[in-house]
C-alpha cells in the first residue's frame, strides 16, 4: 500500500516532466481521463456556442427554450441522439459501417496524447510529437472514406470521394507550412526539434512567436496552415464533403443516433486538435503574452490573476443578464438557473485565484484561450464565407497553397542558414566571378 502511495507521490516531486516522460502510469491515466473529459466538455460547449454565435451573426436569437439562453440545449441534443434508433441500412456493408465512426473518433482523440497544455501538462512528450499529430490526424480520412463507401448509397459515396481528395490535397500544403515552422526551431538553444513541448520552449528562448519570426515568412506559413486546417476538418467554406444543399449530409447521410454523434464528436475534437497544432507552432502554445519583455515577480503575479479575472468577468456578465431576464413568473426557474450558472462561474474564478492553483493552471488557461480564438474563427468563417466549388477548392490547394508553401520552405531554409549561405555560397561565387572577369580582361 505504501509503495503505491509512494509511486503516486513520486511524480509530484518531479519538475518539468510530463507523466509519460516520467513513466508514471497512474498520473498518465489521470491526465488521459482529464483530457478526455475536458475535450468532451469543450465539444458540448462548442455545440452551444456555434449555434448561438451563428444565430447572433444572422440577427437571430438561437436556442432560447431549453434552459436560460438555451444553455441546456446540448444536453437535450445528446439525450435525443442516444435515444434515437441506430439504423444500419440493409444493403450496407455492416462490419465496415460499424467500424468507420470508431476509426474517426480514435484518430481525433489519440492526437491529444502529445498536445502540450503546459510545460508539464501533456500526457507525454514524444520526440516526433508534431509528426505523430499529423500522422494520426491523417488517419481520420480513412474513417470518412470507409463510412461513405459502407453506406452503399450515392450521396455518401460522393461525399467520401470529395473528402478524401480534399484532405489528401490539403495535407501537402499543411505539411510544408509545418516544416517551415520546424526549421525555425533550429535557432533555439537545444537545436531543432519535432517535440511539441520543445517547439514552444524554442519560441520562448528565441523570445518571439514563430508567427512574427522572419517577417513575413512566419505569417505566410501560418496563413497557409490556417487555410489548410479548415479544409482538413471539412468545415465551411470547405465543407463540400457534407454540403447539405447538394449531398444531404455527405458521408454520414445514412448514419443516425449514437454513430452519427460519434462523427460529430470527432469533427469538433479534430477542429480543436488542428487548432492546438497552430497554437503550438505559431502562437507560442501555453506561453502567456510577453513572457520575456514583461517578466519579474510583479508581472508574473499580474498575469497569473488573468484566468480568475476572466471567469469573474463571465460570472458578472451572467448576473447582468439575470437582472435583464423578463420578470414574468414563467421565467422564474430560468432566471434562477442563469444566476446559478453565474455563481458556478464565479466559484471557478475564485478557485483560480488561490495561489497554489493559479500557478499551475495559467499555462492551461492561455493555451485554451488561444485555441478558443481559433474555434471562434471557425464559427465566423461558417457565418460569412460561401462554400467553394470543387474545382476552385482543388485550384486553391494545388495551384496556390502548394507553390507558395514550396517557395516559403526554400526562403525559410535560406534565411535560417543565412550565415552559412553567405560564407559558403554567395562569397565564393562572387569571388569566382571577379576572378573570371580578371582573367578575361
Amino acid at each position, binding site marked *: 500500500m505504501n509503495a503505491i502511495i509512494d509511486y503516486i507521490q513520486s511524480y509530484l516531486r518531479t519538475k518539468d516532466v510530463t507523466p509519460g516522460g516520467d513513466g508514471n502510469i497512474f498520473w498518465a491515466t489521470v491526465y488521459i481521463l482529464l483530457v478526455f473529459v475536458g475535450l468532451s466538455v469543450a465539444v458540448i460547449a462548442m455545440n452551444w456556442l456555434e449555434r448561438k454565435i451563428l444565430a447572433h451573426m444572422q440577427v437571430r436569437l438561437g436556442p432560447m427554450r431549453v434552459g436560460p439562453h438555451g444553455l441546456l440545449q446540448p444536453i437535450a441534443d445528446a439525450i435525443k441522439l442516444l435515444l434515437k434508433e441506430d439504423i444500419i441500412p440493409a444493403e450496407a456493408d455492416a462490419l465496415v459501417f460499424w467500424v468507420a465512426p470508431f476509426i474517426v473518433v480514435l484518430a481525433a482523440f489519440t492526437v491529444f496524447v502529445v498536445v502540450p497544455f503546459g510545460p508539464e501538462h501533456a500526457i507525454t512528450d514524444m520526440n516526433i510529437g508534431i509528426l*505523430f499529430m499529423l500522422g494520426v490526424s491523417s488517419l481520420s480520412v480513412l474513417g470518412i472514406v470507409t463510412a461513405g463507401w459502407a453506406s452503399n448509397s450515392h450521396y455518401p459515396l460522393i461525399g467520401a470521394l470529395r473528402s478524401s481528395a480534399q484532405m489528401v490535397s490539403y495535407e501537402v500544403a499543411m505539411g510544408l507550412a509545418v516544416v517551415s515552422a520546424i526549421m525555425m526551431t533550429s535557432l533555439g538553444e537545444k537545436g531543432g526539434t519535432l517535440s511539441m513541448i*520543445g517547439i514552444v520552449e524554442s519560441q520562448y528562448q528565441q523570445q518571439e512567436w514563430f508567427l512574427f519570426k522572419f517577417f513575413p515568412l512566419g505569417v505566410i506559413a501560418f496563413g497557409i496552415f490556417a487555410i489548410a486546417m479548415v479544409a482538413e476538418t471539412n468545415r465551411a467554406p470547405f465543407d463540400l464533403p457534407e454540403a447539405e444543399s447538394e449531398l444531404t449530409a455527405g458521408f454520414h447521410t445514412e448514419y443516425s443516433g449514437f454513430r452519427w454523434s460519434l462523427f460529430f464528436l470527432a469533427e469538433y475534437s479534430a477542429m480543436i486538435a488542428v487548432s492546438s497544432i497552430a497554437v503550438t507552432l505559431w502562437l507560442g502554445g501555453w506561453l502567456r503574452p510577453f513572457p520575456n519583455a514583461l517578466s519579474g515577480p510583479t508581472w508574473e503575479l499580474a498575469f497569473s490573476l488573468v484566468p480568475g479575472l476572466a471567469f469573474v468577468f463571465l460570472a458578472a456578465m451572467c448576473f447582468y443578464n439575470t437582472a435583464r431576464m423578463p420578470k414574468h413568473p414563467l421565467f422564474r426557474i430560468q432566471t434562477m438557473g442563469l444566476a446559478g450558472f453565474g455563481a458556478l462561474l464565479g466559484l471557478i474564478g475564485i478557485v483560480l485565484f488561490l495561489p497554489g492553483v493559479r500557478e499551475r493552471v495559467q499555462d492551461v488557461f492561455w493555451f485554451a484561450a488561444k485555441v478558443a480564438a481559433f474555434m471562434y474563427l471557425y464559427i465566423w468563417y461558417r457565418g460569412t464565407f460561401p462554400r467553394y466549388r470543387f474545382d476552385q477548392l482543388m485550384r486553391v490547394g494545388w495551384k496556390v497553397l502548394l507553390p507558395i508553401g514550396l517557395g516559403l520552405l526554400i526562403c525559410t531554409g535560406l534565411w535560417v542558414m543565412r550565415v552559412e549561405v553567405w560564407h559558403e555560397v554567395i562569397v565564393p561565387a562572387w569571388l569566382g566571378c571577379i576572378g573570371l572577369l580578371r582573367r578575361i580582361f
Partner: protein
Amino acid sequence: MNSSLAANPPVATPFFFYLLAAVMIVGGILVITRKNAVHSALALITTLLAQAGLYLMLYAPFVAGVQIILYAGGIMVLFLFVIMLINIERTMKERQFNKQWLVGIVAAGALGGLLIAAYTTTTGGRTLFPLGRQSYVDGDNTQRIAMLLFDNRFGTYMFAFEIASLLLLVAIIGAVVMAKKRI
C-alpha cells in the same frame, strides 16, 4: 525529451512484440483471402499500423511516424479511393486465385531460404543481427537520421537518398504523362 532509456526501461517488450507480430500476420492473411477489395485494404492498413508499432519498439520513432503518414494516411487512402470506384459486385464474382502452386512454392521457398541464410550467415564472427542492438537516446533519434544523410563526416547515404528521390520524381512525371490526354 527528458526521458532516456536508462530512466525508462521498456515495459513488457516480448508481449508487445508478439501482439504486434500476430496482428501483422493475421492482417496479412486477411489481405489476400478477403474477396472484397475494401476489406483487404482495411486489413492492409491494420498491418501497416502494427508495423509502425514495431518500428517504435526498435526505437525508430521517426520511421514509425513517417510510416503512419505515408502508408496508412496517404497511400492507403488513394488505394481506397480507387477501389471505391471499381464495381465491387463484379469483382466479387470473379475467381480470386490464380492457381500456380508449383511456382508459388518455389518462390516462397527461395525467399524463405534467403531470409534464413541472411539471418544465420556470419562474416568474421559477426552476424547481420547481433543480439545487443545499438540504440540511441530517445531525444536524439531523428537528428541521427539527418546526420546519416547530410553530415560531412558520417553522411554516407546522401547519394542513395538522392537516387531514391529521383526515382519518385520519375514516377510522378510518369503518372502525369499517363493521366493527361494533352500536355
